[in-house]
């Protein structure tokens, strides 16, 4: 089967009434699952597996792919409307999406989120179809040192996340990195920094902390200083209008979409990374590359486009090593793999030779799901937006209960609920002291991956001392280049500010 034949087979299959309905149902379920806090993309795919038992393999795959793509997108909707990221990869969408929703631009934010998600997903699907073997080979040549450098690139945002508050942002990021150290040492498997508490043995879970810091802190803020949401979109029954930004605005973010689609796909291919890392990394990269970094976090479409393009591109990216080598790029991809194996799909290099129809089905269902998702998700967003019309005396406590269930549902562990409550209160204190919650989450998300890869890279590097090993690690071309970029990105905002201050003081003198 050549590429053209595979394409026509895949699309003809997806447009069969039964498959199309399954895709449609998968998108609805995925969007709703994704929007619910605590129900991750992995959980959404897992919940979808029982529905596929009675389906034939190709339709089952289409259904699961639709759930997977839609769940990542659904998480962004609640992140924008309520500041509750449905899935961890949607957390950066709160930075710009929520301020836009508060300004009355919720519909615009959601439209940008859905369209950029679709574009990211489509790009990754195309890469998966055309470049699977080549991309996989390239990604698998990345060792721990390159993975460390890529993760560190995400951390290098810290000096430019908030221009007037560099020290506090760095402190917040370092606090996040420190919190990621608590629990069991990732390489040696021994207790670390648990302060004698068994509750801390499993480490600081990312999802409860994120829900606490974003959702509970916001409700506490509203309790302290009640502020009516006066968004025009929410007037008249909490309706969301699918306001499409003018062409000029889309043109302004064309490179953001392009860069994040590429970067998101690459991060998705890397084993152990995934949509969360991709979305934070792309957000931070775009802050660095932007001509107006100070506007990020105040509610601009650039921020939403960056993270939402990236996290959906990562879903397609994670399918690349899965299909061509049988190596899942993330947790959700691992669940997809088990479901596909259950259906008799032979993962790995022989897939393209023996069962090309599965690759065609995955690609076409991913492409159609990403397009269909925009229309379906707008309708679901309208229903969700109705909730905003409810008085805050009902909505606020409901958000607290949703946050509670969301934290509990991730591991069915009551300690996570306690962690969420503590994180909410600490988050409020940190925000009151002008620390940066986003930087803390960034540190917490990237900390473990950063440490594990650095330590692995040092262990396998050549050298007689630890410093010579680090030098050896940094002398790998890709690692060295990325670390150099990190260094420049970390130092540049500090030097630029120092020079600006100097210039200003000279002018005033």
């Amino acid at each position, binding site marked *: 089967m050549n590429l053209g034949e595979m394409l026509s087979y895949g699309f003809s299959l997806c447009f069969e009434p039964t498959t199309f309905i399954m895709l449609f149902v998968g998108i609805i379920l995925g969007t709703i699952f994704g929007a619910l806090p605590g129900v991750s993309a992995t959980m959404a795919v897992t919940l979808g597996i029982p529905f596929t038992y009675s389906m034939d393999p190709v339709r089952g795959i289409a259904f699961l792919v639709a759930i997977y793509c839609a769940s990542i997108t659904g998480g962004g909707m609640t992140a924008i409307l309520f500041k509750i990221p449905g899935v961890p990869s949607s957390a950066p969408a709160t930075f710009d999406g929520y301020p836009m929703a508060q300004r009355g631009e919720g519909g615009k934010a959601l439209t940008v989120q859905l369209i950029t998600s679709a574009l990211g997903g489509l790009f990754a699907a195309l890469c998966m179809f055309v470049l699977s073997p080549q991309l996989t080979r390239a990604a698998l040549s990345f060792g721990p040192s390159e993975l460390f450098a890529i993760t560190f690139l995400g951390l290098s945002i810290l000096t430019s996340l908030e221009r007037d508050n560099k020290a506090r942002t760095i402190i917040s990021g370092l606090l996040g990195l420190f919190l990621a150290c608590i629990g069991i040492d990732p390489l040696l498997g021994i207790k670390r920094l648990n302060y004698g508490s068994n509750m801390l043995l499993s480490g600081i879970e990312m999802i409860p902390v994120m829900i606490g810091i974003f959702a509970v802190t916001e409700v506490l803020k509203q309790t302290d200083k009640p502020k009516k949401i006066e968004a025009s979109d929410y007037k008249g029954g909490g309706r969301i209008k699918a306001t499409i930004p003018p062409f000029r605005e889309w043109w302004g973010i064309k490179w953001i979409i392009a860069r994040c689609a590429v970067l998101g796909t690459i991060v998705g291919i890397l084993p152990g990374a995934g949509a969360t890392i991709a979305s934070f990394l792309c957000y931070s990269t775009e802050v660095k590359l932007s001509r107006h970094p100070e506007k990020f976090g105040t509610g601009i479409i650039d921020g939403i486009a960056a993270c939402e393009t990236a996290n959906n591109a990562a879903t397609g990216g994670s399918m690349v090593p899965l299909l061509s080598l049988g190596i899942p790029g993330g947790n959700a991809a691992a669940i997809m793999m088990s479901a596909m194996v259950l259906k008799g799909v032979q993962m790995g290099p022989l897939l393209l030779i023996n069962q090309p129809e599965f690759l065609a089905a995955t690609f076409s269902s991913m492409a159609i799901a990403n397009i269909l998702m925009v229309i379906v998700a707008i309708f679901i967003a309208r229903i969700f937006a109705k909730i905003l019309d409810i008085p805050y005396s009902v909505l606020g406590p409901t958000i*607290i209960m949703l946050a509670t269930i969301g934290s509990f549902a991730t591991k069915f562990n009551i300690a996570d609920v306690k962690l969420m409550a503590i994180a909410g209160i600490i988050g409020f204190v*940190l925000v009151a002291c002008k620390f940066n919650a986003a930087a803390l989450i960034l540190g917490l998300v990237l900390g473990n991956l950063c440490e594990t890869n650095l330590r692995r890279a040092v262990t396998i590097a050549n050298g007689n001392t630890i410093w010579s090993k680090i030098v050896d690690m940094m002398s790998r071309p890709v690692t060295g280049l990325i670390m150099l970029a990190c260094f420049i990105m970390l130092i540049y905002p500090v030097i630029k500010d120092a020079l600006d201050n100097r210039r200003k003081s000279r002018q005033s003198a």
Partner: protein
Amino acid sequence: MTLELIVNLLLALGAVFSYFYVGATMPESSNLELGAEQWPQGILILLFIALAWNIYQIIKKNRAAGIPLNFKALMEGASKFVKSKLFIAMVLVIVMAFAINIFGFFLASIFILATYGYLLGERTPWKLVVFPVVITFLLYTGFSVFLSVMLPRGTIPFLRNFSLFIESLVRL
């Protein structure tokens, strides 16, 4: 400003303590690898330096603006805070985190939804009763019935039986 300074100082103290704690509780690592204690210690050193810089900046700004460190005002603020809605809200969030395990999802949810609603200004008695009950059942149906999330039933035997009774009614 004073609260900010106190939080920064507490964080710095925590960083120093954790630095020595992790050093004392981890096995000594070899010269050829990064051990379990070195990564957190590196972060803690950077954290301490950043906190020290931030504390210096706060003091410098306070001096420039002529704001003295006023612990009396802080204490007055603290006593006001304890009586504020915000403090009660924080207590409610903590109470809920513990109550959900002891009293079960149904009772804890109805209690929190009603109490927090009252705190946020809802004074209509029927709304304070009907909304919490309806929302609790909607949440239970969504998460437990459709998504198979086993919500806590409580640890006290008769409350657990009550939760099981309500669940059986919902699942009818």
